[in-house]
């Protein structure tokens, strides 16, 4: 076993990449996950596959207008139709209420918060009513018999326009989110406008800037610009992009013996119970949550989806199970999206390409509900990934009457990289510096600092480790960067080739969660997993760390997941790419705990001290020979011993929820639980260097991606196939932002006009190279025992920006100022020799 690391800063250059799986029996090896056969044979049950006796179906009525107030609903005719069982209105949905969070803190009710149904819709497509009937056709026919009278209210779908003097606000009480009490207070909505003078820059094709509601800075920004060899001042818009999970927010619910059973997709099985309880305003022990398989989340289903309360409430009201299937069009509206950010960014560069200062001004579109942290993360990730010695960040987060936003893979980070990287590429061309070399001189390393100084301590945050320079060098070598970048001619006929490189990073882990294992009297090792099965395979993979500690064959492990009635431990939410890091730590901890208990049981039964024993191959054996027992025998002895060994007593370190799970399992085997209390110095981030080559046809504007490589620094590689899936899958999400996925909203009517896949255009398998490549350094993170960090989110920004950079290498710097970049962008700008699309105009 690799030792638990000392927590001394590591010199990055001293660390050497290791072959995957080096030093391990399970970690770093490919294997077939326990859910694989069900997935590929179609036996896996997603929410829509569940049925219950007497189940009704419900369908939603969506708001036809972007902002309005319901004056009256007349459902008399609908309710009189045969087969129609009832309706649910906003008045029947639990309203905003205080709640107590995990830390015991009371969170005050948010009057601006979203509810499952509303009588004042804030966006076109917001659910306002639900109808339940014996089947969907009856429900749909009934909906068309309902008369709804609505009063239109002022609306605005454009965040910059919302800052214009005299423009409409998204809500009657404001348009911009501000902190009530400096940086740490609750956010509230207020009316906030710039002046006509502030908008002067608009005439020059630049983003106007005015007063900011949030800001921080460090270093001497003015001196940085003064000392720069080149200063660039660029306007850029990142698109709002829907999550478009293949599994929509379908949910089924029924009540049994006073408990609510909910079936729906989630990223986080354990953590969704508290969310359901909060939304329903019932106790957590009255919720049973079933989510065996989830068709994607990407940040939009961290704890399921708020709309699940609709079938839950209808089920209670009508005393029957209720299935609510969500269509693709409905998913477009309620399925969440990444906030688009309009950015004005000034960066100074020294002659060698080193950044001297960054001044970033953002207008973030928070959509219809809640503020957004993307603008903040955008600043923070910029300061980490490019290590500017001086930086000023300003932000205004604006509410608009557009569908709600949420975290989407690398929230804020993806936008930061898409905004900054094209500026770096332009600077490299101006300075005559190689693109890889420019990134190398700005690359973070080791315990890299980021963000502004903490106002209390005066110190900046720092990372656990960073070996990105090694990934950049290894990636450039594998991609054959130098030779390819020097290749001439770049243009043959109408086809022009370009090369792009991008750095990328995002959060890669959290700490402090629990693991729970039961060794059964049959000798199986049952591992309780509270992680959501959202497609990343973390639900299974992380537990390899426990099996590794127990030195046992994986085939003897059974993973229990997907049903909170099966006693799951306190588990992190699967958001922010924290799961691999957080839950391998918990798995490692409970593996050690289980091994210790097995040794104790052996010592109590066979004599000697626990340390006289070792655990391997499903046996606890005396070191050096001389007797032992199988796991099965140990479990039988544990049951006889009772107390801490079979779960009748509980490890006091673990969370209350884990304690309850242990108690529920008591007496069934050797039950071990443990909390991750391993030290952890710094914040965990993962990193990638991404490389792309594109070929553009200047006569059609059409381009294709010739080649792509993402080289990862994600710590120890836990499961190569799953990591490859994450790296290339999330790269593809980033590429989607570059090449075409989009919203289309008519601002005059505040209405979305592209709601289907063929209209909003998520990429297809033929839009990326068939042989996209990935690799990883496999250098363990020194601040976590297994060495592994998460990698769901970090590739997204690099996927997007490497394509953008390759395009500007091929076509020049004056083609695009926003994503996505399509044939129309290229064709018009290439002919004109300047960007022809208004950089501030979104949703086209």
């Amino acid at each position, binding site marked *: 076993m690799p030792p638990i690391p000392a927590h001394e800063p590591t010199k990055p250059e001293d660390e050497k990449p290791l072959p995957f799986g080096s030093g391990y029996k399970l970690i770093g090896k490919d294997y077939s996950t326990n859910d694989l056969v069900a997935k590929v044979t179609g036996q896996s049950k997603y929410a829509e596959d569940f049925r219950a006796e007497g189940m009704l179906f419900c*369908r*939603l*009525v*969506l708001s*036809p207008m972007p902002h309005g107030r319901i004056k009256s609903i007349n459902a008399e005719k609908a309710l009189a139709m045969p087969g129609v069982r009832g309706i649910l209105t906003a008045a029947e949905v639990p309203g905003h209420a205080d709640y107590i969070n995990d830390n015991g803190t009371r969170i005050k009710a948010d009057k601006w918060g979203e509810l499952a149904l509303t009588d004042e819709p804030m966006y076109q497509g917001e659910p306002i*009513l639900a109808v339940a009937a014996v089947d*969907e*056709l009856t*429900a*749909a*026919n009934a*909906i*068309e*018999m*309902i*008369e*709804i009278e609505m009063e239109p209210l002022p609306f605005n779908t454009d965040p910059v326009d919302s800052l214009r003097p005299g423009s409409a606000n998204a809500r009657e009480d404001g348009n911009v989110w501000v902190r009530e009490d400096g940086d740490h207070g609750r956010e509230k909505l207020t009316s906030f406008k710039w002046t006509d003078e502030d908008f002067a820059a608009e005439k020059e094709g630049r983003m106007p800037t005015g007063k900011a509601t949030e800001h921080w800075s460090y270093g001497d920004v003015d001196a940085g610009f003064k000392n720069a060899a080149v200063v660039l001042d660029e306007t850029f818009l990142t698109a709002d992009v829907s999550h478009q999970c293949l599994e929509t927010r379908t949910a089924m619910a029924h009540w049994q013996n006073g408990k609510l059973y909910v079936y729906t997709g989630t990223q986080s099985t354990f953590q969704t119970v508290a969310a359901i309880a909060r939304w329903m305003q019932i106790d957590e022990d009255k919720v049973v949550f079933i989510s065996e398989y989830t068709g994607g989340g990407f940040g939009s289903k961290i704890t399921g989806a708020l709309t699940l309360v609709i079938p839950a409430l209808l089920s209670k009201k009508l005393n029957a199970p209720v299935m609510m299937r969500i*269509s*693709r*069009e*409905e998913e477009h509206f309620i399925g969440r999206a990444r906030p688009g950010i309009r950015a004005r960014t000034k960066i100074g560069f020294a002659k060698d390409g080193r950044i001297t200062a960054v001044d970033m001004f953002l207008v973030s579109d928070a959509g219809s509900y809640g503020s957004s942290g993307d603008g903040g993360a955008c600043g923070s990730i910029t300061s980490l990934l490019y290590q500017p010695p001086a930086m000023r960040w300003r932000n205004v987060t604006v509410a608009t009457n557009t569908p709600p936003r949420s975290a989407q893979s690398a929230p804020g980070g993806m936008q930061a990289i898409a905004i900054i990287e094209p500026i770096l590429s332009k600077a490299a061309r101006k300075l005559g510096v190689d693109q890889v070399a420019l990134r190398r001189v700005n690359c973070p390393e080791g315990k890299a600092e980021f963000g502004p100084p903490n106002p209390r301590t005066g110190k900046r945050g720092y990372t656990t480790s960073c070996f990105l320079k090694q990934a950049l060098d290894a990636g450039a070598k594998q991609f054959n960067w130098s030779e390819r970048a020097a290749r001439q*001619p770049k*243009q*043959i*006929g*109408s086809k022009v080739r370009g090369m792009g490189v991008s750095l990328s990073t995002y959060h890669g882990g959290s700490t402090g969660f629990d693991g729970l294992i039961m060794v059964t009297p049959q000798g199986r090792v049952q591992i309780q997993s509270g992680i959501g099965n959202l497609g990343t395979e973390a639900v299974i993979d992380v537990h390899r760390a426990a099996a590794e500690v127990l030195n046992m064959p994986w085939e003897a492990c059974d993973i229990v997941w997907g049903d909170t009635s099966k006693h799951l431990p306190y588990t992190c939410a699967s958001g922010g790419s924290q799961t691999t890091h957080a839950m391998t730590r918990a798995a490692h901890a409970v593996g050690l705990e289980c091994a210790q208990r097995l040794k104790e049981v052996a010592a109590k039964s066979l004599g000697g001290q626990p340390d006289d024993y070792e655990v391997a191959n499903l046996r606890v054996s005396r070191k050096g020979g001389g007797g032992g027992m199988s796991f099965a025998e140990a479990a039988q002895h544990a049951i006889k011993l009772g107390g801490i060994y079979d779960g009748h007593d509980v490890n006091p370190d673990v969370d209350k929820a884990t304690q309850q799970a242990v108690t529920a399992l008591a007496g069934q085997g050797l039950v071990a639980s443990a909390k991750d209390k391993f030290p952890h110095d710094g914040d965990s981030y993962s990193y990638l260097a991404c490389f792309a080559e594109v070929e553009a*046809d200047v*006569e*059609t*504007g*059409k381009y*294709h991606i010739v080649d792509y490589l993402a080289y990862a620094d994600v710590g120890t590689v836990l499961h190569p196939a799953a990591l490859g899936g994450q790296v290339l899958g999330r790269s593809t999400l980033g590429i989607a932002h570059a090449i*075409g996925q989009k919203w*289309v*909203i*008519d*601002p*005059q*009517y505040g209405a979305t*006009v*592209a*709601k289907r*896949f*063929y*209209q909003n*255009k998520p*990429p*297809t*398998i*033929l*839009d990326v190279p068939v042989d996209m490549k990935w690799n990883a350094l496999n250098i363990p993170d020194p601040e976590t025992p297994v060495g592994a960090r998460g990698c769901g989110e970090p590739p997204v920004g690099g996927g997007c920006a490497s394509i953008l950079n390759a395009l500007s290498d091929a076509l020049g710097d004056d083609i695009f100022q926003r994503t996505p970049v*399509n*044939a*129309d962008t290229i*064709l*018009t700008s290439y*002919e004109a020799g300047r960007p*022809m699309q208004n950089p501030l105009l979104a*949703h*086209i």
Partner: protein
Amino acid sequence: MAIIRDVMPAFDLLQPSTSADAQKLLEQCGDDAWVMAGGMDSFDWLKDRIKKPKVVVDLSGIDELKGIRVTGDGVEIGAMTTLTEIANHAEIRKNYGVLSQAVSLVASPQIRNQGTLGGNVSQDVRCWYYRDGWPCYRAGGNICYADTPVGRNREHAIFGADRCVAVHPSDSVPALIALDAKFVLQTPKGERTVDAEDYFVGPDMDITKINMLQPGDLLTAIRIPSTWAGSRFYFEKVRDRNVWDFPLMNVASAIMLSGNTIGRMRIAVNAVSPRPMRLKAVEDAVQGKPADATTGEMAGKMAVEGAVPLQFNAYKIPLMRNLVKRAIAGVPSQQA
């Protein structure tokens, strides 16, 4: 009344097994009937509950409408022949390659397996306002939502706008026009044959229609004469995604060359106008000229004369100019 999408309404489903029966049923049901070929266009309308026909006449069980027959003068393609079958047909690949190329670029493999040639040429426009049920001119209203100062019209028309600015979305039609195909209709008055380009109706003639089919009419076959067999063909489709996408624009041409001199040419462009556009003036202008870049550039400039861009589709002018140029001179392959 409240609106709901994505639940197909109830209708009577009629499944005739002969084209005569189908035509008779259509005649009997008149305006109440909806003709369904592969369903790729129909299901959208039906599931969205925007079209609620009393009767759907499903043509999928009519064997005589399926298949490709090589005749003494070209080929005859049954209207219910799938796009996949056409794309893979040896005779069409050999002598009418522009059509096999065009249909092989329609949408996605799954859609080509289900979609038919009759359906592809007869499909409705894809303007997102119209398809979403907005009460526009084409839907019988009195406004075009796409043609406003802020209307979202990136994919709309630069030619032929007359209140409606939607474009015809078919990939197969320009190829059929280039091949001088004839469309065979069964009507209450008997069989009728029309030139490919005459099958389509612009908003200036009838804003609520996209082709000449009247209630009771049935498109049964498309005949391709051997006139252009083996000539030099060109087809190109520009789309945002490499699969499962309608054209931003496409072009098809057939050129009879004498040496490198253009003897005769037929050329058509789609997704630029509510009606597929045959470029007759270009055809005439290039006759007798060399099939080279100079002629191509001249033709491209001529093709876009009179184009009127909307707010977001000015790119279609250089795109059309370049595609027409390529249809004559090919894709430039020399170093710039």
